[in-house]
């Protein structure tokens, strides 16, 4: 449904935009209906930037975004309005998502004025009640309150309800539970599961690996703006390949195995993969040496993935990128 192809984002920073900050590099991923895709990476890895580009809150620098086959990389005001009927977002900080000086109802009122000016008051009210019921909120507890009178969990569910009023197909959820306390986290997570069952596609952005494991069908691991590994959740979590993913997973507790088992398995994997780079091995196996790849990246530029930021399919549905970490570092396999 949603497909990102070689998406790039360069921020101009410094006075007069003199220096560049390459926040997102050649990111390709897709989200299908009825599927949760987790975008996992540490803070500053470019997750929110990707989410905002998908939501058209930021312009992309390169690459394409398509939705149901239609190119939506550049949209005018009208087209964007239509796009937002199908694609909505919820953000990390629920308290910053509401204008603090107005009652929360106003968020819904804005939506109504913008998209449903002809819907009658009573009809709107019943739709609102339905949407609130879907996120297990009681209208009487919520409506007519100011944001500071509600909890973060309630506000996040309100925002999801807001998205549901539009009958959306894709939800971009940017760290929506990281600011909630543990007891409400699980409610919101379960709610996402229900939305998925209804056929929604969800791009779930998180820095928390275990959350990604809990909700998602597929995961995308991001490091410094580059996808290092991507695949079905079970494949990536059971057999992490990229050094960065392995580092991350090494610190996550497993319920079904002891630390010793996990460490032994990781030690075996580390020994097997040390000094190697599956990406460049695969590229070389296709008949191109490292040098050729670099050369072709400089020369052609015709859809060619430059500079080893691409991915190879190691196992069906399990992709991995070059084993260096930051884009500036050399490949551990040497070149």
């Amino acid at each position, binding site marked *: 449904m949603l497909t990102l192809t070689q998406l790039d984002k360069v921020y101009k920073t410094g006075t007069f935009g003199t220096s560049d900050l390459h926040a997102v590099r050649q990111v390709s991923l897709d989200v299908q209906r009825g599927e949760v895709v987790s975008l996992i990476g540490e803070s500053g890895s470019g997750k929110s930037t990707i989410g905002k580009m998908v939501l058209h809150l930021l312009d992309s620098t390169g690459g394409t975004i398509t939705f149901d086959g239609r190119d939506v990389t550049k949209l005018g*005001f009208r087209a964007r309005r239509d796009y*937002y009927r199908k694609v909505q977002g919820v953000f*990390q900080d629920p308290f910053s*998502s509401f*204008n*603090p*000086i107005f009652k929360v109802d106003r*968020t819904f009122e804005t*939506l109504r004025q913008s998209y449903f000016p002809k819907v009658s008051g009573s009809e709107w009210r019943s739709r609102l009640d339905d949407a609130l019921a879907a996120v297990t909120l009681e209208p009487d507890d919520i409506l007519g309150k100011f944001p*500071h009178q509600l909890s973060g969990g309630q506000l996040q569910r309100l925002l999801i309800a807001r998205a549901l009023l539009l009958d959306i197909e894709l939800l971009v959820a940017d760290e929506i539970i990281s600011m909630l306390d543990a007891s409400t986290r699980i409610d919101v997570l379960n709610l996402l599961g229900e939305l998925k069952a209804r056929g929604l596609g969800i791009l779930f952005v998180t820095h928390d690996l275990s959350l990604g494991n809990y909700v998602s069908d597929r995961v995308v691991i991001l490091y410094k703006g580059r996808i290092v590994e991507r695949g079905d959740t079970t494949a990536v979590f059971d057999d992490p390949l990229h050094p960065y993913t392995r580092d991350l997973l090494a610190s996550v507790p497993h319920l079904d195995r002891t630390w010793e088992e996990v460490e032994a398995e990781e030690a075996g994997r580390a020994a097997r993969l040390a000094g190697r780079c599956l990406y460049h091995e695969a590229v070389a196996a296709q008949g191109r040496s490292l040098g050729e790849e670099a050369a072709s990246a400089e020369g052609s530029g015709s859809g060619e993935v430059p500079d080893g930021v691409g991915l190879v399919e190691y196992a069906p549905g399990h992709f991995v990128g070059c084993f260096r970490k930051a884009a500036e570092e050399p490949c551990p396999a040497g070149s």
Partner: protein
Amino acid sequence: MRKENGMTATQPITGPVTEASEQPGATGSPSGGRKPGGDARETLYFALRNPKVIIGMVVVLGFLLLGLLGPAFLRYAPMDYAGPPMAPPSADFPFGTTTFGQDVFAQFVAGLRSTFLVGLLGGGVSAVIGMTIGFVAGYRGGLIDELLNMLTNVVLVIPGFVVLIIINAYLGVRSVPMQALYIGVFSWPWVARAVRAQTLSLRSRDFIDLARLSGVGVGTILRREVAPNMYSYLFMTFVLLFGGSILTAASLDFIGLGPTNAMSLGLMMNQAVQWSALHLGLWWWFIPPGLGITLIVGSLYIMNVGLDEVFNPKLREM
């Protein structure tokens, strides 16, 4: 008198302005982080209990009423040769008469009207320009921001008062609204800067993004999401601009660059000095306009400080 002269004449635009740009600035971040609103009633409650606001308001409204209702009770027009020359205050002429026997009270009332008109129009013009530029620059960012910023800085470094003197001298100022317009056109930069800064910090809040996700246009977002968070600030800004315009107009009038077809408080002082009221001891000619301007402008600033306390709970004296 001398003290007042000093104040009106040597404190051109920059005087009240530098002060002004700092005062509301001290309120700090956009008042969004402030108490959640909708509590207009609460604000009013504190406003009506703040002595600074009350005193300021009473004085300003008192003069306004006098200006509005006064003419109905006058028997003479401001320029009429109405009575004996140089008469001290009496029952017939509460503020006495000028060297030519003009009724000083009639002039004072007419002058009040121009004073408030200049404040309202001049303050209004600069508020509209400054806020528009500030909102657009802060919200759009990028090239538009840089261009508007450049414009703001250019107008900011232009010595506004000097330009006003030149404009007035060359083009001549026939009417009070014309004068107000000129003043307004040169006193908006600090407003634009402050509004831009606040807009910039509000823009990065998620609720702005959410409004965009609701398919709402830029104008609507500025009007419905950004500006309401700054209402208190914008109101205080207007109060300051109002006072600043009055002061600038009075200074221009005083040095003889006032409107030619109207009476104003500054013009009264100008004429008083021109006809040696000081040496002739005609204190009733120059004290009322001088005191009037001082009281009005002073009250506006006091009111502004009071409003700051009202809008900013941290400053409230409990």
